[in-house]
């Protein structure tokens, strides 16, 4: 009997994780604040590696956490920083002209 | 011949991947010598491609298990008639592009980036043509995309950068759709080899959806009519050797892959509906590309729009595949003839542009009259694009029309003929300035190789006019799927 409870508990966890993943993906792609999207994307990557563990793929979970969330997250954050700086540069130039 | 028997045992196919990859790696390590690595690679790769084509022609298709692991476990390289013809076309055009670039990029500070990326692109295309595994094809496809996007962006400036970005996003969308197709196929059959999949695929929902996803994804990459927006600015503003590589070779990659999938993996699926849709898009491409080519003010833009039109012919593939068992061979021959002719036109255009310092059609007359060798090359290769007699283009269109009429598809025959008329009009526009009276001017001094290479390629277009039979007999040695 306890075994069955564990099983259903795990399935409930899977369903909850899947819904959370979909919700996070929805929010991060909805636009608005880009910084929030990037942070949500990193969270999405970490949640994904949890899903890979549930799908008995620990190697993929390691790779996802390190590369999918970690490196991609760093890439996104630094790109966002550079984008902001470019925006400021354009803003200043146009402000100077008019 | 005894040497033929020795050759039969040799595994040539891996060398067509090893050589350009080694060249690309070495060029990346020593950028200063990149052009010499490039030239050496081009020569060796052409020799290997010739030997491979001869070997396949003599002994039939060859399948190589990589690492000695047999198919369900390992990856295979498949060297058959279709693959070796594409490899040979790539090698011939590739050598011409490399030689021309030697002159075109001489003295350019950032020229070594062209060589590095071009060798990577070549290696990636060869790997793709030889791959016999759906997932491996995905990886090679990404290599092709990254190398060609970087080549498009190499020109710098807003238009090429925007075109490169658009191209990258469309390609990534296509790659993801393709990969979803791979996942569905693996989910349904548990194998990844093209042959193994072809033996199992039967009419059901999973492979149908996979086929649609993969085909549509690859269509997006190949710039078929409504999805062509990025192509003209990308191909029209890149340096001439890059334009030639993109228009003559890269466009053929996703066409090849679609053809390979439908020949090997999906022959059991029906094409009804898809063939009409593709035929309509193809006709749209032929018309739209032709009309835009008639209006474009610059030489290389005209040639770029001509590529939009000619991609249309490639996707007459679907009506042909459905109607005639041998129909695809005519389309492949067209792809080869177009590759050679388009490369010759772009390289000749590059030479004229360098000589004149611009490529505005209206002001090119003097230089065209002064550089007769190049204008002649432009004319012959243009005739090849139109499909005038004695060129490879003529044989290609002859085969297309003949196949269409045999299968009772007179509409598509009309599309081919109408497209030919449009092509005639825009090629005449290209050559027009040369025939106006006026002074002749050789323009800026250029290395001789930039004049001879387009001419040699243009003459090869005529040579292809006599290559119909050997090409078709090489294509007959193609592995088809469906229980095979």
């Amino acid at each position, binding site marked *: 009997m306890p075994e069955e409870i564990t099983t259903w508990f795990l399935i409930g966890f899977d369903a909850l994780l899947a819904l959370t993943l979909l919700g996070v993906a929805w929010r991060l792609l909805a636009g608005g604040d880009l910084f929030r999207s990037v942070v949500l994307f990193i969270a999405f990557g970490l949640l994904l590696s949890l899903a890979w563990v549930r799908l008995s793929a620990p190697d993929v979970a390691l790779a996802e956490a390190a590369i999918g969330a970690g490196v991609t997250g760093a890439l996104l954050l630094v790109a966002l920083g550079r984008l902001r700086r470019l925006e400021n540069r354009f803003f200043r130039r146009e402000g100077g002209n008019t | 011949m005894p040497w033929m028997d020795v050759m039969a045992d040799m595994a040539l196919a891996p060398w067509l991947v090893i050589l350009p990859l080694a060249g690309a790696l070495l060029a990346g390590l020593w950028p200063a010598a990149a052009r010499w690595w490039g030239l050496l690679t081009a020569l060796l790769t052409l020799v290997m491609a010739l030997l491979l084509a001869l070997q396949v022609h003599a002994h039939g298709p060859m399948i190589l298990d990589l690492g000695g692991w047999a198919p369900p476990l390992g990856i295979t390289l498949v060297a058959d008639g279709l693959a070796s013809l594409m490899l040979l076309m790539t090698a011939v055009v590739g050598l011409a592009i490399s030689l021309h670039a030697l002159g075109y990029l001489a003295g350019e500070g950032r020229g070594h980036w062209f060589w590095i990326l071009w060798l990577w692109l070549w*290696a990636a295309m060869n790997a793709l043509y030889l791959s016999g595994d759906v997932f491996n094809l995905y990886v090679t496809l990404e290599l092709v995309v990254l190398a060609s996007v970087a080549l498009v962006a190499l020109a710098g400036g807003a238009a090429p950068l925007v075109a490169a970005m658009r191209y990258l996003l469309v390609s990534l969308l296509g790659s993801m759709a393709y990969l979803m197709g791979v996942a569905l196929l693996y989910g349904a059959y548990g194998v990844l080899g093209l042959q193994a999949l072809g033996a199992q695929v039967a009419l059901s929902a999973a492979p149908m959806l996979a086929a649609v996803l993969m085909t549509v994804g690859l269509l997006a990459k190949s710039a078929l009519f409504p999805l062509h927006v990025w192509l003209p600015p990308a191909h029209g503003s890149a340096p001439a050797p890059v334009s030639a590589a993109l228009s003559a070779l890269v466009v053929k990659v996703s066409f090849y892959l679609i053809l390979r999938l439908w020949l090997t993996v999906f022959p059991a699926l029906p094409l009804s509906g898809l063939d009409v849709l593709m035929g309509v898009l193809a006709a749209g491409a032929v018309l739209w590309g032709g009309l835009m080519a008639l209006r474009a003010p610059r030489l290389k833009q005209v040639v770029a729009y001509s590529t939009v039109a000619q991609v249309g012919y490639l996707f007459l593939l679907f009506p042909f595949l459905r109607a005639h068992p041998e129909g695809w061979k005519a389309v492949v021959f067209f792809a080869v003839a177009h590759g050679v002719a388009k490369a010759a036109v772009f390289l000749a255009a590059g030479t004229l542009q360098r000589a004149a310092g611009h490529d505005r059609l209206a002001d090119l007359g003097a230089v065209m009259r002064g550089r007769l060798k190049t204008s002649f090359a432009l004319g012959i290769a243009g005739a090849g694009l139109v499909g005038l007699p004695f060129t490879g283009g003529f044989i290609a269109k002859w085969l297309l029309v003949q196949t269409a009429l045999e299968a009772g598809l007179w509409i598509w025959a009309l599309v081919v003929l109408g497209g030919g008329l449009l092509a005639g009009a825009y090629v005449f526009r290209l050559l027009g300035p040369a025939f106006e009276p006026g002074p002749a001017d050789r323009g800026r001094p250029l290395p001789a190789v930039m004049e001879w290479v387009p001419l040699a390629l243009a003459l090869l277009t005529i040579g292809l006019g006599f290559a119909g039979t050997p090409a078709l007999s090489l294509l007959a040695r193609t592995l088809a799927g469906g229980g095979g």
Partner: protein
Amino acid sequence: MIRRRFTSPLVLLMSLTLAGLLIVVVLDLPPQPGLAAPVADAMDRSGVRHPVTAVLLNFRGYDTFLELAVLMLAVLSIWSLGLRDPIPARPVQGPVLHGTLRHLIPVAVVTGGYLVWVGSSDSGGAFQGGAVLGAAGVMLMLSLPREMPMPSALVQRLGLSLGAFAFLAVGTAGLLTGHGFMGYPPAWAYHLILGIELAASVSIALTLVLLFLGGRSRRVRHGR
């Protein structure tokens, strides 16, 4: 804007249709054995004990080789796009982060090395280990954005291509010695795989740092 009003519902409709089709298809996928059994049967000839590593570096080693090529090509593409901008981060002040880094980076190096080594028998491998090493490198760069300790251009290029070169050399040697392209002599398989993994992890770590920096440094431009 009129165009947008008509296209958005159309795109939505098409997306929903695709979603419906995909759901029907994936929930109806027939049970199939997959490749678990062939992999298990061939494990004793693979040279390693962990199935995923065996697939990555032996059975489908060609894929992994091309994947290293993709990584390298990405760096080259980025370099071809121009010089890199400085990282939008200020140099870290104060002793806390520097002290943390001084301890964190050796830990990351050991962890990365361990992941590479353990890959032959358990979860881990060149990509995971390389990623951890790369993350350590990125942290180092972030803490010193003004005076980044970068090796010379030639060393960068050598390190970048080390993994692909090692793989290509071993693969070609296999072709020349009769084990087939990308084949290993079974007796040496373990050592060759470990060697390739080490070379690959160095390349991967360097690649990730260079991807993060984005664009080539002035040194690469002039370094011949």
